[in-house]
């Protein structure tokens, strides 16, 4: 929008800085260095790609008089908006921009592959409705593969650390997990992985083990308890005297981190060689508890290496093992050895652990901190057979009542949304806390095997302008990608998966790309080629052509016009050449337009009068040689070219006289005639035609000397005379 400058303070647009209380925060100001001298006539502002703003400042067109030749008449500056102050999504604080871009790039192939599989299945289903049903039943496996690929991008919590671990390390040193990965895994567990659905409680326990540290930054968690104790551990002489030792043990046990519990039990003072003899019973009790902990039955198919417990694949197996194990726990609890144990803190601590293993709700509530931890401990010790979302949701509500947490974290909100079987809530939590990347990619997980979510996300809504929620989120994500000059190239993948508005937006995106750099233009054109957008690519080439032409790179301009098959503009260029040739045929200008002719190439006929121009070029070149070298051969050839040109109907009439005038010198200097009678007669006829045409009002003047016509006539006449004489 053009704005007129005002008088006040050089500001283009009137802008009042009011100190009034009504305005809560002043609008952000950005000084722009445009380098244009003060009287600024117009300012144009337009969006460039992404969040770049282009501001053009122009001086009044007639002000050169006072300025002088070196003054800049105007300039265009680019302003990058939105540096640093990106949206408040939690993810962006945790993951830096470059890392997020790495994730964005990495997820593109997986997304594209899944979409293509979806399309292939849809096509197959359309072709034969019956046979495709079994294929579709395995759809979730494709989604699982997709989910695993993307999960790996988000960081691998099990990545092996190549270091010798200190035996006193409680929590393994590893890269800090991100909440983005936690959210992704959670969705995968609940929505995609059908194979492990019956072991859902144990999977939640595993999930909590990986991501407990993310649950709360301020409030205490099992993880924070253990890491605090770890720091303290170095300075402790007698660990079993410290209450934090036992607190840590019970906390770790309640959420099922059995390996950590066993490892920590081995720190117990009674294991030290010099104390073995005095504390034999005590040591026996510690060891007995450690054995019981490490043999706890788990209803799951397998355990990763390093984790403890005995796996039971089926329910009957588990029940049998559970009864036996519980029996052993109870037996130990009632054993008489406790009386012989001299260390009271050890006795209390170990008994506490036994109570946790026996599923004592009071102990479990006391030893856990966050409601999700309490939730997990229920699965481990009280209700190992919990199935179904309804039961879980009830349990979660109960745990929240017992352990109310001050603020809801994105992850806990997500868990509640999932358990309440409410995809809308899940989607809203993802949008709010994890940003557009997660939403766009996680929608595939939500719809993997959930008909309700499928309908909800794919239904076209009039209030969204006729697009579905899925498409809306993809478009939002594509916009985010477009706003960065390095990621815009992956936006087309997402836009092309949007059926309603994607293609239109893709065309706008491609047309908005900068055309200054040939390589970038070629990258844009490659995308056009892949999506078969011939019209867009032709338009981009034309825009690039005009840009280069205007900036004096005539070669590049013509190249792009030719690539775009832009006959109209190539004809215009040819017309310009005509004009120039019409005005002057001096040798200086000849060199200039010869280069242009070279560019227009041998593609004769592609652009109107170019055929003539090529022949004319050949004629001029030959004429030059003939006049320089004065060899008979060159002269003869020149005359041949001349005759060809004059005979050719594509030669415009206004060039007849200049052509003939150019050859006057040649005709006159030769002792013997160069043309025979017939040729000379042809030229004379043309000359006659020209003289008649001169009387017509539309005749164009050739800027030739007034005697041109007569000198040509004289030369031709003398040539004719000599030709007649020589003619046998």
């Amino acid at each position, binding site marked *: 929008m053009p704005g007129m400058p005002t008088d006040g303070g050089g500001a283009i647009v009137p802008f009042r800085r009011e100190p009034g209380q009504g305005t809560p925060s002043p609008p952000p100001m950005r000084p722009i260095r445009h380098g244009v001298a003060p009287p600024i006539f117009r300012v144009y502002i337009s969006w460039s790609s992404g969040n770049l703003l282009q501001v053009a400042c122009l001086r009044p067109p007639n002000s050169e008089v006072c300025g002088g030749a070196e003054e800049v008449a105007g300039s265009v500056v680019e302003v990058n908006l939105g540096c640093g102050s990106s949206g408040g999504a939690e993810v962006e604080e945790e993951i830096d921009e470059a890392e997020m871009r790495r994730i964005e790039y990495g997820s*593109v192939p997986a997304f*594209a592959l899944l979409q293509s599989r979806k*399309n*292939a299945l849809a096509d197959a289903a359309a072709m034969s409705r019956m046979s495709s049903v079994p294929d579709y039943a395995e759809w979730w496996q494709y989604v699982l593969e997709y989910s695993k690929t993307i999960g790996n991008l988000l960081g691998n919590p099990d990545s092996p650390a190549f270091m010798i671990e200190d035996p006193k390390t409680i929590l393994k040193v590893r890269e800090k997990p991100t909440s983005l990965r936690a959210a992704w895994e959670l969705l995968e567990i609940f929505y995609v992985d059908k194979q492990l659905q019956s072991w859902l409680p144990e999977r939640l326990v595993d999930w909590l083990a990986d991501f407990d540290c993310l649950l709360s930054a301020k409030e205490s968690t099992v993880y924070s308890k253990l890491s605090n104790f770890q720091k303290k551990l170095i300075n402790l002489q007698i660990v079993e005297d410290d209450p934090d030792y036992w607190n840590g043990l019970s906390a770790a046990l309640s959420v099922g981190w059995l390996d950590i519990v066993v490892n920590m039990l081995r720190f117990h003072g009674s294991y030290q060689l010099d104390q073995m003899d005095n504390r034999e019973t005590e040591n026996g009790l510690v060891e007995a508890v450690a054995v019981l902990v490490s043999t706890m039955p788990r209803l799951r198919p397998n355990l990763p290496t390093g984790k403890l417990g005995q796996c039971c694949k089926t329910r009957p197996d588990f029940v049998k093992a559970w009864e036996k194990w519980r029996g052993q726990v109870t037996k130990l609890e009632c054993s008489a050895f406790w009386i012989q144990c001299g260390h009271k803190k050890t006795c209390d601590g170990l008994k506490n652990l036994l109570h946790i293993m026996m599923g004592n709700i009071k102990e479990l509530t006391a030893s856990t901190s966050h409601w999700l931890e309490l939730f997990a401990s229920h699965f481990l010790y009280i209700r190992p057979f919990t199935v179904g979302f309804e039961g879980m949701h009830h349990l979660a509500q109960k745990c929240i009542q017992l352990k109310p947490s001050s603020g809801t974290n994105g992850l806990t909100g997500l868990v509640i949304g999932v358990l309440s079987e409410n995809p809308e809530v899940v989607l809203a939590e993802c949008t709010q806390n994890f940003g557009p990347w997660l939403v766009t990619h996680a929608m595939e997980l939500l719809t993997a095997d959930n008909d309700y979510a499928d309908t909800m996300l794919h239904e076209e809504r009039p209030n969204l302008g006729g697009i579905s929620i899925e498409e809306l989120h993809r478009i939002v994500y594509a916009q985010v990608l477009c706003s960065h000059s390095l990621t815009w190239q992956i936006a*087309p993948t997402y836009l092309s998966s949007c059926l309603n508005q994607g293609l239109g937006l893709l065309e706008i995106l491609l047309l908005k790309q900068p055309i200054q750099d040939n390589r970038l233009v*070629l990258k844009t054109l490659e995308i056009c080629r892949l999506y078969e957008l011939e019209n867009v690519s032709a338009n981009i080439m034309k825009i690039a052509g005009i840009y280069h032409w205007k900036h004096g790179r005539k070669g590049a301009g013509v190249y792009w016009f030719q690539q775009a098959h832009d006959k109209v503009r190539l004809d215009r260029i040819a017309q310009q050449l005509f004009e120039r040739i019409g005005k002057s045929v001096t040798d200086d200008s000849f060199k200039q337009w010869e*280069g242009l002719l070279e560019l227009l190439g*041998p593609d004769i006929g592609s652009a109107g009068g170019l055929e003539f121009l090529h022949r004319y070029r050949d004629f001029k070149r030959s004429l030059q040689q003939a006049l320089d070298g004065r060899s008979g051969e060159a002269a003869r050839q020149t005359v041949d070219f001349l005759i060809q040109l004059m005979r050719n109907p594509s030669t415009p009439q206004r060039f007849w006289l200049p052509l003939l005038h150019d050859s006057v010198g040649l005709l006159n200097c030769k002792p013997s005639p160069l043309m025979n009678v017939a040729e000379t007669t042809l030229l004379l006829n043309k000359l006659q035609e020209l003289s008649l045409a001169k009387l017509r009002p539309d005749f164009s003047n050739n800027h030739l000397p007034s005697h041109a016509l007569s000198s040509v006539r004289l030369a031709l006449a003398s040539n004719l005379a000599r030709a007649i004489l020589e003619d046998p």
Partner: protein
Amino acid sequence: MVLASISLRAQTPGTLNLQTSVMADSPSFRRHPLAASVDLVRWLSSSAASPSERLLAAAIYDPSSGPAASSIHLLPLSDPTSPYASLPLPSRATALRCSPAALAAATSSGSLHLLPPSLDSDAAVAVPGGAGFHVGPVRGLDFGGEEWVTAGEDGRVHAVGGGGDGRLVARRVWDGKGMVGYEAARWASPAEFATGGAGCGVQWWDRRKGDAVVAQCNGIWGRGIVTGMVHSIDINPSRKHICVVGGSSGTIFAWDLRWPQQPIPLSGVGFNGTTEPVCESEVWEVLFDTYTQSSDIISSASSKILPVMMCSEDGILAVVEQDERPLELLAEACAINSFDIDPQNPSDVVCALEWESIGVLTRGRDTMAEE
């Protein structure tokens, strides 16, 4: 960007396997994310500055760092994510070339920067862009033993050499006045070099004949077009009369000066009777591959073109050979903008990937046996 082609081609179930092979990297290929766009990448010849470590030079563009967006980073091969040194540039690098005498970079604003073998960025010398040198991007850059040649999109060709007192002196060889735009330049001998550009094919210049073009070839372009854009030229030092040229529409052809009117197609779309095209998009760079043995050893002394490595916009890194099936080394999901073969250890290849990373490929004898 091959992704769209995946989704288009995936209608036929067989092609899906291709994608899974793309995702799993072979152990001989390592990817290093750099957190900024990598436009060009080259191996540095071993220098006194770092005798023990092999170094890479990469042209980096990071739009988020404001005025310091463009630079040349020198990266140790063992850990390419932490630069050993860097040289700031006034604008995005458009050409990068390494010689024993210096590391040279040309930019999109028409300047040329030389870094001495000591790799000390304070000792770097430059020719600023502008009316006296180049206006706009300089894509052609090469060292001929005595002088650097630069060829720009503005149609100018310069020879740049030392002025004796440590300064750089640029001498204009030719000014095309925008009628032509050059995209590539390569020396054949200290007196001859080749240039190529948009719509003008390849030119052969001879300095002994008054700095003039002595031979010209429009090239052969696929898809029925009469002209294309040359992106890269390479000349094998052992056969100085043959240029190999890569450009638009997956076109790779060889030009033998002894038969200047008959370029030899190596790959391209729509060439009847020749080998299948290795890619259909822009071929960004070509280099003679000294590591791959010509399959036809007996007649290798004859006119057969030596194997050529290429990288393309659709993510292909491959070795093409006359009348042979191309050997695909990488098929990435994003463009490969640049690559370089280590001159001292030609089994190692480094490439710049569009998605802000570089890849290092180590070829063993077994990869040769596969094909």
